[in-house]
């Protein structure tokens, strides 16, 4: 079996300008933030981002890396709105495809199943139909119902963050919610997983139910060990959301040089220096 371990930089080296990239997690929860930070350190641009959006979207928008955003919401959960996403929208910087959450799920599912679309009731009668002029409906061959034909959301690459993985790409979530990470993985040509810890295969299910094994290695191209790699989003049970950091991130948007200061302090260096700054911030608070 292949050893699929990679570094953050090696994963980003596999990405190209203009790619369609799906980002797992949900809102400000279990986002592959170390991989997002690695993208911010690269010069990747014109990305189409497909995400149940949180600060992954805000950061990439603030850095001007997103051309098109496919989304149903962007939120920081404990803070309702991400200020950088809001600013990018209000400045007209993003082309968007805004879907209902269930339509988004159906789109990923269609892509994972290699179907061109899936029928869904959600979206009918809403502005989703008018703001996505290419969206079509489909008539049931059995009844008189006309439903939304949600197109497959096919991805070039999916990036997800898990609690544990082995070197071969089997990956495990230990928190309460798998989110849609398995669909993201199967909707993509290639899926890269970051994990809090990369451990031997036989340790994955030691004392853990087998249902926690969300991704099997056939769906995974590369594995990165990234401790605290979802920071500042939550990654239960390893850690909760770093609320103080999230507030600092959100408040940085309030001043003219706020983004520059935030970037210089946390993002200009590598992942190790980011994590060192996070430790410093915690010590300041203590």
């Amino acid at each position, binding site marked *: 079996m292949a050893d699929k371990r990679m570094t953050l930089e090696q994963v980003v080296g596999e990405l190209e300008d203009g790619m369609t990239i799906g980002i797992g997690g949900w809102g400000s929860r279990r986002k592959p933030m170390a991989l997002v930070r690695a993208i911010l350190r690269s010069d990747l641009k014109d990305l189409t981002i497909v995400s149940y959006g949180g600060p992954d979207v805000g950061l990439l928008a603030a850095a001007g890396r997103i051309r098109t955003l496919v989304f149903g919401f*962007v*939120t920081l959960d404990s803070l309702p*709105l991400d200020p950088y996403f809001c600013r990018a929208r*209000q400045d007209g910087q993003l082309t968007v495809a*805004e879907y209902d959450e269930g339509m988004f799920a159906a789109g990923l599912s269609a892509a994972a199943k290699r179907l061109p679309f899936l029928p869904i009731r*959600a979206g009918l*009668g*809403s502005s989703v139909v008018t703001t996505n002029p290419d969206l079509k409906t489909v008539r049931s061959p059995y009844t008189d119902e006309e439903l939304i034909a949600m197109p497959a959301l096919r991805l070039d690459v999916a990036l997800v963050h898990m609690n544990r993985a082995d070197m071969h790409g089997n990956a495990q979530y230990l928190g309460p*919610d798998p989110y849609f990470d398995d669909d993201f993985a199967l909707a993509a040509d290639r899926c890269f997983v970051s994990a809090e810890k990369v451990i031997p295969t036989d340790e994955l299910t030691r004392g853990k139910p087998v249902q926690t094994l969300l991704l099997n290695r056939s769906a995974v191209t590369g594995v990165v060990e990234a401790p605290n790699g979802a920071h500042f989003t939550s990654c239960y049970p390893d850690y909760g959301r770093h609320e103080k950091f999230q507030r600092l991130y959100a408040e940085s948007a309030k001043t003219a040089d706020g983004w520059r200061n935030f970037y210089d302090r946390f993002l200009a260096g590598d992942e190790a220096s980011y994590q060192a700054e996070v430790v410093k911030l915690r010590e300041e608070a203590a």
Partner: protein
Amino acid sequence: MSDATRAEVAIVACAELFRGDGEIVASPMGLIPQFGAKLARQTFEPDLLLSDGEAFLLTPQSDTAGNDKIIEGWQPFKKMLDVIVPHGTRHVVMGASQIDRFGNQNISAIGDHSRPTRQLLGVRGAPGNTVNHRTSYWVPRHSTRVFVDTVDVVSGVGYDNAQKAGPAASKFHDVHRVVTNLGVFDFASPDHSMRIVSLHPGVTLQDVTENTAFAVDDSDVTETRTPTIEELHLIRDVLDPKCLRDREVRL
């Protein structure tokens, strides 16, 4: 004369949203609806399933002994969107940044969708919720900014748009009520336009008309009921001893 505050009346009005719902999933978004759903569950709707807004269905404890989280079910977002919402055994109470006379709701963006003047959350699950199962709304500050002639982005689908979109859209469409800091509203008029069900004690018809950009049917207005002694005890001593409710609704 009850000494209940406006926030407490609003909690009871939110509880009343779930009366008769039985064994379905209640998804209350926002503080006052959450207290309302728990109150309903602990009094007249004991069979309600309570979503915590995340992956769990929780059984609330009727004492303050600390352990107020008994997990009775697992409902991660994927199950919610794949099964619970389309299956329809759910009643959601959502917020509304804008709502119009036919119950169209906006939580997505203010202004032109291609370049909004104010970006909000996005449509979230509102389009799917409203065409699949019962939906109510909670508005803590009833004003002409919220109660508008036309919403800028139709997130939650109102009666007129559900009708226009055909049988698949209207089949399960059921916008039940809107509860605000001023009163309770429904859409049970002949053309499904908004109607005043009741005004909270101390609220006048003028308070509503001045704070609503469209005409509301006021032909059959009653007063919102006040909490019972048991309900007041539950709200004050069990559900919200820290009085978080007063931050959302003042008076």
